[in-house]
């Protein structure tokens, strides 16, 4: 392990992150809300820490092992979540230290769970910082670093692999820097497009930028307490649904489609994409039937809320906790399935669920053909046994982690429904749960210990368990 190299890399990530804090300062100046200096202080504090680490690290590491990759990524997410909280403290929006940390972690991991109330009266610079944190975390700040800093090129693939979600990680281009760039360009383009669309649909430019960032990042922070319910516009809701769905698709697929001139075929021939669309359509139909039959909601609410939860975004246009109990269970299940691998969404990812399902079917077909050779296939390609095994390992660990987080939550005195759903909402990076953390309320009422547990769950979920867990195994640290 190259500790110095790790420290240096972390340092440069922190400096990059600190420079990001200057943007909200500009926003503050523009709205003359008087918080620019607070952001400058936060940025300076953060940057100086980063510079010290870089100095101490001595310079760009010659090479990074795969272990270093895990260490850097896991530490970066923890450290940046911590440092991202500084503006919340310096501006005084969060008086409680834990609240600031919670808000920052929730943002960076694109969970979108909030402890802030009265968003409509919070300074715009803070709102912008929240949104921006989600946006940075959406495609992954480390992927961004790999894209913009060629000096990370050598160990780039290790970092890239440790951060990108999904069971199989592809390199789209010959060089990892180019891959990272391609992903960020697509991400940026989608955000700009989404911003313009929302602005044309009637949002203020500021709201449009914020919502574009949190939609495409599948985050779910809003600039209003009523979330998307604030806008009573079919256009805004419709566009948001479309961009949530787009951001929930594997970006590799977007890239492949772009190369072939946005052909529909490159999407429709992808098994994960087809499952994703079918799954969300099924959810909408079932939830719609339950809701409409009981007269507790309308079609557009059903579509919006379902897409929002199924892609793990976390926006809401109405309080779906008031819908019939069946819908709550379906939404709860949808959180776990999540969006596509390689997207900005959370959850276990559609492709994993699809593979697990196919693996199950394979066992059944084996009973019918005892000597049959049956492969698990995605896109007509056999998935190797080791990948399927890793998948089972992931599934078990994911569920165990979920259970542990939920149990720990209940130990802090949270009721059962809230424990079960808040744990799910955080580990899948969705945001709102049910009970006291439902779409109509916030996480503010939870005890500090509960918030700590949930923060742990969010990072665990964002890094898809393994990257984080590998650090907890003693073998990792043995020379």
């Amino acid at each position, binding site marked *: 392990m190259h500790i110095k190299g790790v420290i240096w890399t972390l340092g440069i990530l922190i400096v990059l992150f600190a420079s990001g804090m200057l943007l909200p300062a500009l926003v503050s100046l523009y709205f003359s809300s008087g918080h620019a200096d607070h952001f400058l202080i936060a940025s300076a504090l953060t940057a100086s820490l980063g510079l010290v680490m870089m100095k101490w690290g001595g310079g760009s590491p010659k090479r990074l092992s795969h272990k270093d990759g895990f260490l850097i990524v896991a530490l970066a997410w923890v450290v940046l979540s911590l440092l991202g909280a500084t503006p919340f403290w310096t501006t005084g929006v969060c008086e409680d230290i834990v609240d600031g940390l919670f808000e920052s972690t929730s943002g960076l991991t694109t969970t979108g769970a909030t402890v802030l109330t009265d968003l409509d009266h919070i300074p715009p610079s803070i709102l912008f910082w929240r949104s921006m944190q989600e946006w940075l975390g959406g495609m992954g700040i480390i992927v961004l670093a790999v894209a913009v800093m060629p000096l990370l090129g050598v160990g780039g693939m290790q970092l890239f692999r440790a951060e990108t979600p999904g069971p199989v990680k592809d390199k789209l281009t010959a060089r990892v820097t180019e891959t990272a760039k391609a992903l960020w360009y697509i991400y940026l383009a989608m955000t700009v497009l989404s911003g313009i669309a929302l602005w044309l649909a009637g949002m203020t430019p500021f709201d449009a930028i914020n919502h574009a960032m949190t939609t495409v990042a599948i985050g779910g922070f809003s600039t209003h307490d009523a979330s998307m319910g604030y806008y009573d516009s079919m256009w805004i809701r419709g566009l948001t649904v479309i961009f949530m769905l787009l951001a929930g698709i594997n970006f590799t697929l977007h890239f492949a489609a772009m190369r072939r001139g946005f052909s529909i075929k490159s999407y429709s021939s992808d098994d994960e994409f087809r499952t994703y669309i079918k799954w969300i359509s099924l959810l909408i139909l079932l939830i719609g039937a339950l809701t409409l039959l009981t007269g507790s909601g309308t079609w557009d609410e059903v579509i919006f809320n379902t897409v929002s939860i199924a892609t793990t975004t976390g926006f809401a246009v109405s309080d779906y906790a008031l819908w019939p109990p069946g819908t709550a269970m379906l939404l709860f299940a949808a959180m776990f399935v999540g969006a596509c691998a390689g997207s900005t969404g959370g959850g276990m990812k559609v492709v994993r669920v699809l593979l697990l399902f196919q693996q199950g079917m394979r066992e059944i077909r084996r009973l019918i*053909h005892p*000597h049959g*050779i049956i*492969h698990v*296939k995605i896109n007509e390609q056999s998935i190797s046994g080791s990948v399927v095994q890793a998948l089972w390992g992931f599934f078990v660990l994911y569920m165990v982690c979920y259970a542990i987080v939920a149990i720990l939550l209940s130990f802090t005195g949270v009721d059962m429904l809230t424990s079960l759903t808040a744990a799910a909402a955080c580990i899948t990076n969705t945001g709102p749960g049910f009970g006291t953390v439902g779409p109509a309320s916030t996480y503010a009422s939870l005890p500090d210990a509960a918030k700590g547990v949930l923060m742990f769950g969010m990072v665990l979920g964002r890094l898809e368990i393994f990257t984080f867990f590998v650090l907890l195994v003693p073998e990792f640290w043995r020379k």
Partner: protein
Amino acid sequence: MNVLILGAGEVGFHIAQRLASEGNDVSVIDNDAARLQRVADTMDVQTVLGYASHPTTLAQAGAENAELLIAATTNDETNMLACQVAHSLFKVTTKMARIREADYVNHPKLFGRDELPIDLIISPEHEAAKSIVKRFQVTSAVDAQEFANGKVQLLGMRIPPKGHLAGIALSELHEVVDGLRTYVVAHEHNRLWRVPTPETVLLAGDSIYLAVAGRDVERLLACMGSEEYRGKSSAQRNVLIVGGGHVGYIVAQQLEKLGTSVKLIEYNPMRAEWLAEHLDRTVVIHGDALDRQLLEEESIDTIDDFLALTNDDETNILGSLIAKKYKVGHIVTLVNRAIYSDLMREMGLEITVSPRLTTASAILRHVRKGRIFDLSTLGDGTLEVLEAEALKTSAILNIPLSELQLPENTVIGAIIRGDKVIIPNGDSMVEPNDHVLLITQGTALREVEKLFEVGLEFF
């Protein structure tokens, strides 16, 4: 003609034999002395020991004067390279290569004067697979061959013991087939194939080939009363393929496209894994096709079609016999060795496919290009089918067929005039530029070819 044949395997051997017996100067190259010895012992050809793609070896075999090169070694790359060498160094006019790998064949841009100079690509496995799939679609016939882009078909079938065909003379056939235009062009009795006359009487157990317009095939089969498979389309059938070699793989792939449900048994575990990876809906089973328990596990009694396509003739024959015991309706057996082909009928296995024969006929077809467009063989190979164009100078024009003096044992089975197909009777006449489908005995082939090639001499 000077011909160079690379590779003395089953395909090379058979082609060499055919071409040599037709009076060509043939040289055979192989790097296996024993195989060459076998060639030298059986036929009158030159043999050269060495690597087929090496210029020295080719020169030694007389590539300088060769007009035709047939690269039929088992290695695709060697075949392609040999054609290139023959083209660049020896200016051999016509080059044919056996290429198995579908990935090469699927990129026609690779081949041409300025690319890989190969005039004809032959792939025995593809040819065999194609004919198996074609037969699969006309199961009540024993054989089906298409000519003139499918406008005319030759259907081979057995005369069943019970049924209205047994015991009638050919002159009475048109009554049985409901006035449908058809022409019996070949008849087999006691394993002797010949071109029939109107007086020929069909007996139970005989085989015949009928020429019929492509669009009438269904109706003809219906008249012949082969009811077994009627009502079951390709998509409804259950097929069991034994052997996942090249042929088995291609057939499975094609049948998948037809929507048939396919099971494939493969003995080699590595190959089975490969097949499971590359086939989409086919159920790949690893095991021994002769294992009774395995066959019953896969419910062989509900199988409609049993295709035995391993590389091993014995396994194919035994497998087919087992399938016959389970009363599988349609059994296709792949047989490579000539000795078995003759035995099949004795064992009650009707339908055999021989990649060697199919490939050889594909090559010979090309060799005889000119006014003759298509050529293949019927039955055991004694009868040949030619599709030829009647030039203005040809001696056969405008004479009613009943008065036409054709070489012995030769008939005109169909006349293709533009888009029209004429199944002839005695009054039909051949007009200029018609394509005619002739069926003739191998010995008369030369004379028939002359009819079309050197028409001027007849004036």
